[in-house]
């Protein structure tokens, strides 16, 4: 039986297998390449893993809940646009000190709507669409109401979340 061997194999105690009878200089170069290569490759695997383990500064709450603002940021009867997932949202503090949050994407052709404090209504500047504070499309071209979100106050944060799915 012919066994392919690596020279005289030392017992398994020695982790480095010795090669006898090969040009020592070549052996050194080879060990160098191999060693460097292994270290470099292991480094190139470990470096991303170590970076990955460090949590990013922005700890996202996930796309269905977002902090839209802080208490006191808005005056009564005013509004702000906030980012909700991949679409804009409209946060309104009404004259009665209630908070409302709706999708800010007009259901007509997708322009971003705004709150009109003088009319207590939501208005789309593109084609004069009007929505009431419950998101219902009351005038102009929009064919469907705006999606309404839940708002609640958590500490001093105003947290907006999508209506929970069943």
């Amino acid at each position: 039986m012919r066994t392919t061997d690596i020279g005289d194999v030392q017992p398994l105690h020695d982790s480095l297998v010795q090669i006898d009878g090969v040009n020592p200089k070549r052996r050194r170069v080879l060990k160098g390449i191999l060693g460097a290569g292994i270290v470099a490759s292991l480094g190139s695997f470990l470096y991303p893993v170590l970076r990955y383990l460090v949590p990013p500064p922005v700890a996202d709450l996930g796309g269905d809940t977002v902090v839209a603002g802080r208490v006191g940021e808005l005056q009564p009867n005013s509004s702000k646009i906030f980012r909700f997932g991949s679409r804009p949202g409209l946060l309104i503090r009404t004259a009665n000190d209630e908070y409302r949050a709706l999708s800010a994407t007009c259901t007509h052709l997708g322009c971003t709507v705004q709150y009109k404090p003088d009319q207590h209504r939501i208005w789309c500047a593109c084609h004069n669409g009007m929505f009431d504070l419950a998101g219902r499309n009351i005038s102009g071209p929009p064919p469907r109401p705006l999606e309404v979100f839940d708002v609640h106050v958590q500490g001093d944060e105003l947290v907006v979340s999508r209506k929970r799915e069943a």
Partner: protein
Amino acid sequence: MRNPVRNALMNGSIRRSLLTIAVSLFVCSLAFAAEPAPANKNSCLDCHSLLEENLKVTPEQFAQDVHAGKGLTCASCHGGDPNSDDKAMDKSAGFVGHIRRAQIPALCGKCHADAAYIRRFNPSLRTDQLPQYLTSVHGKKLAQGDEKVAVCTDCHGLHGIRAISDTQSSVHPLNVAKTCSRCHADREYMKSYSIPTDQFAGYSASVHQEALTVRGDLSAPTCTTCHGNHGASPPGVASVENVCSTCHALQAQLFDTSPHKVAFAAAGQPGCVTCHSNHRIIRPTDALLGPGPGSVCSNCHSPGDAGLQAAGQIRTSLEALDTKIGSSDQILKRAASSGMEVSDAQLELGHAKDSSTKARVTLHSFDPKLVQKDVEAGTKITDQAYQAGVQAMHERDYRRMGLGVSLAAILAVLIGLKLWISDSEKKHD
């Protein structure tokens, strides 16, 4: 006699007579059972469902009619007595027979203009159709004796009149244009009138028709939205803008502040329609604007005059914004397809597209400075999105460089291993 009834029943001949009476009664009752109760008899339909062509009215047809559903019958309009085959067409029972076209509006109006009567069926139904009709072109011409014009039944149907909300009704918003076109697109029929017959063809190519039929937006205008339905008349030159502005309020407001308002009025030109046409309102493109070929500005403005220059300016700035949006879109798409996550930037770019849309509303002020404000807002956003795209592409390159480094290290290991193996195994050959 102790028991008269018993005695009678015992008597054979009396029994026979009683039996005969009983059987006859039974048979008669069968006949009654087989026939519908007298109240449901409709001798009109009994005959007319068997007649041909324009005299044919089937029970199925009539069952579709809203009037039938409310308990009205043929006699409600035509008179006569539907319960009896003899009295069905009896003049003494009020039979009117065929109703002449000129009499139809008044006939329908007998109920539909009577608010107290209609209130019994639908309190919120309007009852001004007849007075409106009389102010319309159709109504006026009918009063002058022209029986070719439309009367109630031409649009609403004759014997199978459906509710307006029924999608199969000839006056459902989706079907109105087709109903009007039955006459108004018929060149032969309209020969004696001095109006064109291309309205339906134009409307069919318009964005309004597309909104109605393709996007399913039932609030989109059809013939009656601008012309009125019962009081149908074309809006006068001075009122066209008011009609359009019921939906396109912003554009109308801006137009009113523009020099065009006074200029058009002076030239007797209608607002809106002069540039956009009345029926063939197609999706406007930038080609409509400016000094180039295909623009509507050149119809009035002479080359080089201030107005045309302003138009050119507006067009240039709109196109500049669109070009920028296009290139930002492109780079973001390239980044996304290389696997970079750019949804944030793409969302922001959507706002720039909003600005582009808004700018095209603002242009109705024909003031380059106003338009430029919108364009600048959009440009700022677009530039940011573009920067995000550039960054994403840099990140992509950085990743590929990283890949290259690790591949080089792996290659070194592979070569090293191969040499190691072959070196050590060579010894024993």
